[in-house]
């Protein structure tokens, strides 16, 4: 038990000016009484009230499709077009994909996204963004990719954002289209009010989306493969840390901390994931509200 100490300044300190909940501080009584009350308050154990929070369940990592590694490397030219009330914006990018890496190159800015598959757990991924304008490589850990809405797992990266869940609100549209020697099948929404997707053209063998068209609250977003080339041998993609050894290397989280005054010129990669969360998403809220069956 601690000996009672009566420092002079505590004797003179106003008592009771910070009464916590349930505190009893005598207004009268001797200085020693007040000090004992003060010491009793000093050692009152804080105990929280009952928690009322309900946590959203954490989505698991997407499982890998069988024989993922058997897909040959490909090089794609992608075009992303957004149409809003402010006009149409189109941007091109080149995608290089093999079993361990996916690289997205933005010709206009020179930026390159380099996604790496985790060798210890092949379902996982992380990424490096090369930004020549800043002579910097930004590193995105797995959670940074999730947090930024870029990708959840290697499957998301490999399939450019299309998962088995993506097909839940869709049905075969009956049409087919060829590109680069591959055949893509059209999928259309069963009920357009339950998904933003208006069209998805998909090749299951190579796990590639030819075209994705989404109608959002902001406008229309389209991602399309304009050119496709299958590659016989390895792509020889080089880790940016080696190819740009003189660039500054920084975690995305740290970039946010250090460059707080700057606007972001980061080109976001094209991973057009579609309504991963199923029927809970999408739809106008003018008059209706979807339910939430969530909980621990």
């Amino acid at each position, binding site marked *: 038990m601690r000996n009672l100490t009566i420092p002079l300044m505590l004797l003179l300190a106003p008592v009771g000016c910070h009464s916590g909940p349930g505190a009893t501080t005598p207004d009268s009584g001797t200085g020693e009484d007040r000090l004992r009350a003060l010491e009793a308050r000093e050692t009152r154990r*804080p105990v929280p009230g009952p928690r009322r929070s309900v946590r959203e369940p954490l989505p698991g990592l997407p499982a890998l499709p069988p024989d993922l590694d058997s897909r040959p490397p490909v090089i794609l030219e992608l075009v992303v077009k957004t149409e809003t009330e402010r006009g149409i914006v189109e941007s091109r990018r080149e995608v290089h994909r093999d079993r361990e890496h996916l690289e997205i190159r933005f010709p206009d800015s020179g930026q390159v996204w380099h996604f790496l598959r985790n060798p210890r757990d092949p379902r996982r991924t992380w990424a490096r963004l090369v930004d020549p304008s800043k002579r910097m490589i930004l590193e995105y850990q797995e959670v940074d990719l999730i947090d930024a809405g870029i990708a959840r797992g290697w499957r998301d990266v490999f399939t450019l*954002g299309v998962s088995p869940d993506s097909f839940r609100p869709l049905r075969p549209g009956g049409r087919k289209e060829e590109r680069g020697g591959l055949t893509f099948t059209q999928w259309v929404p069963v009920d357009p009010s339950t998904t933003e997707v208006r069209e998805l053209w998909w090749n299951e063998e190579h796990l590639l989306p030819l075209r994705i068209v989404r109608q959002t609250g902001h406008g229309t977003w389209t991602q399309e493969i304009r050119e496709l080339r299958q590659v016989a041998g390895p792509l020889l993609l080089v880790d940016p840390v080696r190819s740009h050894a003189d660039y500054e290397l920084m975690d995305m989280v740290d970039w946010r901390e250090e460059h707080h005054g700057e606007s972001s010129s980061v080109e976001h990669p094209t991973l057009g994931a579609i309504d991963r969360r199923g029927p809970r998403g999408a739809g106008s809220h003018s008059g209706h509200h979807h339910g939430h069956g969530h909980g621990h």
Partner: protein
Amino acid sequence: MIYRPLAFLALLCLMSSSLAEESPTLPSRTGGIAKNVIFFVGDGMGVSTVTATRVFSVGVDGQLTLDEFPFTALSRTATTDHITPDSAGTMTSMMTGVNTNSGVIGFGPETERRDFNGDGDGPRLWTLLELAEQNGMKTGVVSTARVTHATPAACYAHVNHRGLENEIALQALPTDSTYNTRLGDGIDILMGGGRRYFTPGGMVDEEGETGSRPDGRDLRQEFQDAGYTYVWNEAQFHQLGWKDLPILALFERSHMEYEYDRQGDLGGEPSLKAMSVKATRFLQRASKDSGFFLMVESGRIDHAHHAGNSYRSLTDTEEFDEAIAAVAKIVDLEETLIVVTADHSHVFTIAGYPMRPKEDLPFDLAGAPKGYLDLQGNGILDIVYDLDSSTGEVYTSTDSHGIPYTALGYHNGPGFRGLATRVDPRDDIFPGMFGQDAHGPWDPDYRQEAAVPLGSETHSGEEVAIYAVGPGSSRFHGTVRNSFIFEVLKDALGF
């Protein structure tokens, strides 16, 4: 411990609140009133974050652990060069009693960040952890950020730029030539993230990611060679015993997972609560009569705010509150001073006049939208619903164009929508997030709106709160500079 009131008074009156490097005689521990000090830092945990977490976690009228602390004060956070500070300058101030420049760790204001005027660094300041080591106490640093990141580093290192994390790691290694010898035989517990600064560049680590040390050194091994027990996953963490001290635990290549994402970690990560409790127990056991100093940081509340992601900031703050409760439960508050604070705040606001949940109301409603009846996060993670007092009906609050808005938001950051007109948050597809669409402001990945477009949301300059319990805690009242925290802790320990 014998207390000598008069000697204690003399020390209080005469002892300087900061110590320069060349102090000829370090004060030894005499007549303190606390055997142990546990210092909790919620990085970026401003008052609005605490309020929002309270609503989310325990309801508007509920009590967080923080709310039960008997003594509080406001803490002024400005550094010597910025109104709105960063973690490095503020933690240096709290750990040394000397306010300094943003970005600087362990030096005073004569040291510019990166020494940009080339006049060299000033003298190293004495940190509370160093004083504890010099006086035979056990010490620990626990963080969900990298253990070399600004806040933990300010406990034990001295660099003129917080980005020098490779060097910071070496300053904690007892066998290195740059070792901070003020740490005596070394920090007893160093636990958190940051394995990349302990792993050679290009080497694939335990979780399949690469190290980044440019000197090719494997500090994970060097720390073990110096006598440390090294662990990197949750299973190993649970196997630890107090006799495994000193401990180096690096659970992630960079920062640890947010609490919400922790369950999905590859190697498994302990929670902040679990780390705090284990560190406390081990230091209690190992320190015997000498006492201990432990710093625990919830380092990612700040990161979530920078990302404009309120959900993760609230769930990390909730976990922080849980950790504090768990530690307060296992220590003797007659001999342990616990202080909780933040280093700075964020431009994070609770806007409009959001109604409480229906079940909290002291009256019946004449009507309400369906969404109000399923209010998310006890009202804090939803759009704003207000009450028409002329009809008794709840309605959806809207902006001047009739569009609803969320209770939570940011003054600046990546949540800027950039549209001529706003979109109902419940239908909102945040531009740039081509991947995953957050559905509704209650979604863990939702980015609350920001008024000013920035790549990263910023800190803010207002005061933060200090919460204290234990011997000496009553010294916290009124509005103080954050450097005052060092004074109180040092005096409590009797340095």
